[in-house]
């Protein structure tokens, strides 16, 4: 499969001597839904900024769909759509104009871009507000506007930097559905997010950045399989007995109706439920006590920090 984006030894040192990227190697396959995770200041936005031409790199190489950024920076810009973390549009411009102007910068005429703007604004539920100034939009609407703007020139690669920050649950879910649809149609999507649940449910591959270095880069499946055990909470239909027989599994009674159980390779959920049923405990609801990716993320980034200190 062709590589959509690769970086080799990408370094960035700011003028204040802050070393934001310490020579990172990333590889994103074409058609992938790729998560780039890291704590605040890990270097995610810097990496994205360099790839999109917003920042100058200190060293390293970038290739996008086989094109070298050093020699084909403008061709690469045509292939990428960026939805940045911070609002970066003129708040005193009508929102339809923002999209049409962005299309114009990509060489698409005003008449041709109007149709695409209409499709995107309708999809983002912003069509009724197309003549409004961008400043009048709510935070979630502004994010959707930036997503529409990133897509106006129909890029091959979509880079999303914290796309759903400040967006309500309903809109977030509809954005996820739209992003899945775009990815299904063949668009490569690179996502940074603080919602690890978002990365877990959307992305197939993942890289974790910590203090300017890649500490993990693998498939989401492989990464999640590294979690040796999972903690779940079972809600019982009736009041739980005072004493529960732990037949090969570890559990803790949280209250009269809730039981915390640790699952591992020897004890899957079927075994546990069967065992509880034998004791007359009937379970009507199961939920995870922790996000698996969050557990791993913390483990990987904390390990890195403890190695350094």
């Amino acid at each position, binding site marked *: 499969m062709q590589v959509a984006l690769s970086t080799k030894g990408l370094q960035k040192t700011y003028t204040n001597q802050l070393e934001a990227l310490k020579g990172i190697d990333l590889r994103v396959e074409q058609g992938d839904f790729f998560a780039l995770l890291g704590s605040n200041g890990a270097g995610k936005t810097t990496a994205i900024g360099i790839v999109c031409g917003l920042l100058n790199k200190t060293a390293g190489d970038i290739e996008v769909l086989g094109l070298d950024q050093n020699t084909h920076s403008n061709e690469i810009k045509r292939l990428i759509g960026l939805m940045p973390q911070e609002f970066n549009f003129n708040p005193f411009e009508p929102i339809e104009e923002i999209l049409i102007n962005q299309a114009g910068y990509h060489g698409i005429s005003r008449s041709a871009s109007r149709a695409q703007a209409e499709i995107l604004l309708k999809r983002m539920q912003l069509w009724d507000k197309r003549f409004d100034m961008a400043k009048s939009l709510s935070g979630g609407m502004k994010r959707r506007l930036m997503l529409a*703007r990133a897509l106006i020139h129909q890029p091959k690669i979509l880079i999303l930097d914290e796309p759903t920050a400040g967006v309500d649950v309903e809109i977030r879910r509809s954005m996820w559905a739209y992003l899945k649809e775009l990815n299904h149609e063949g668009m490569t999507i690179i996502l940074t997010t603080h919602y690890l649940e978002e990365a877990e449910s959307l992305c197939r591959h993942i890289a974790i950045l910590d203090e300017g270095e890649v500490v993990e880069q693998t498939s989401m499946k492989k990464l999640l399989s590294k979690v040796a055990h999972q903690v779940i909470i079972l809600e019982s239909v009736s009041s739980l007995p005072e004493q529960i027989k732990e037949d090969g599994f570890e559990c803790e009674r949280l209250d009269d109706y809730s039981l915390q159980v640790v699952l591992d390779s020897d004890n899957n959920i079927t075994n546990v439920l069967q065992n509880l049923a034998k004791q007359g405990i009937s379970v009507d609801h199961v939920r995870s006590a922790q996000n698996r990716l969050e557990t791993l993320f913390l483990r990987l980034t904390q390990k890195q920090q403890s190695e350094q200190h």
Partner: protein
Amino acid sequence: MWIAYKTIVIKEVLRFSRIWVQTIFPPIITTSLYLLIFGGLMGERIGQMQGIDYLQYIIPGIILMTVITNSYANTVSSFFLAKFNHSIEELLVAPVPYWVILLGYISGGVARGFIVGLGVFIAVSFFVEFTIDSLFITFFTFLLTAILFSLAGFINAIFAQSFDDISIVPTFILMPMTYLGGMFYSIDILPQFWQDVSKFNPIYYMVDSFRLGFLGVSTSDFWTSMSVLLVMIAMLATVSFYLLKKGVNIKT
């Protein structure tokens, strides 16, 4: 590239047109007041300058002053605001060559200079009857002046870190240079020393040539004046392009 250029120009024209109460209307009012006070009320006492009625004599300078201030103000405010609200990133992530960005912003400044200059010209027509001696000289001088000050505004915007920085140059440098560039007088009336000093002021060449276009009188050679302007434009354009390409205060 043509579409990208056109987009920047349309965006700029729409931007200053949307806020016409701040951008287009005030210069027309100010100019009318200048004409009323300096030309109408005081002009009769001053009499003539270079054989021309004072009221008529100051018109080219006043029009050119609005062209200078508006061309400058348009690029400095528009580009600084684009930096300030980060909307400049819309251009940086798109495949727009730096020279197209520069040309687009400069064209926006020239467009505002032209529209405001034309507005002042029309307003002036209500006060004074006059004809333009040479449309070519008038337009050519306007064009070079507007380009030069749009470039100057662009450089100011690149270096500006705050709103104060975009008002310091117009207030403390541009305005004195404009007033001392022979806008209200012919440098012939100055002592020799100040005449020589005035020749280091590029605005003198612009006002003098513009006056030549309008009234047919001047104190310097037209082509010498145009050469001065063209050299300055080449210098400022080179500096602007270099700063933009380098990403000074735009890309870190």
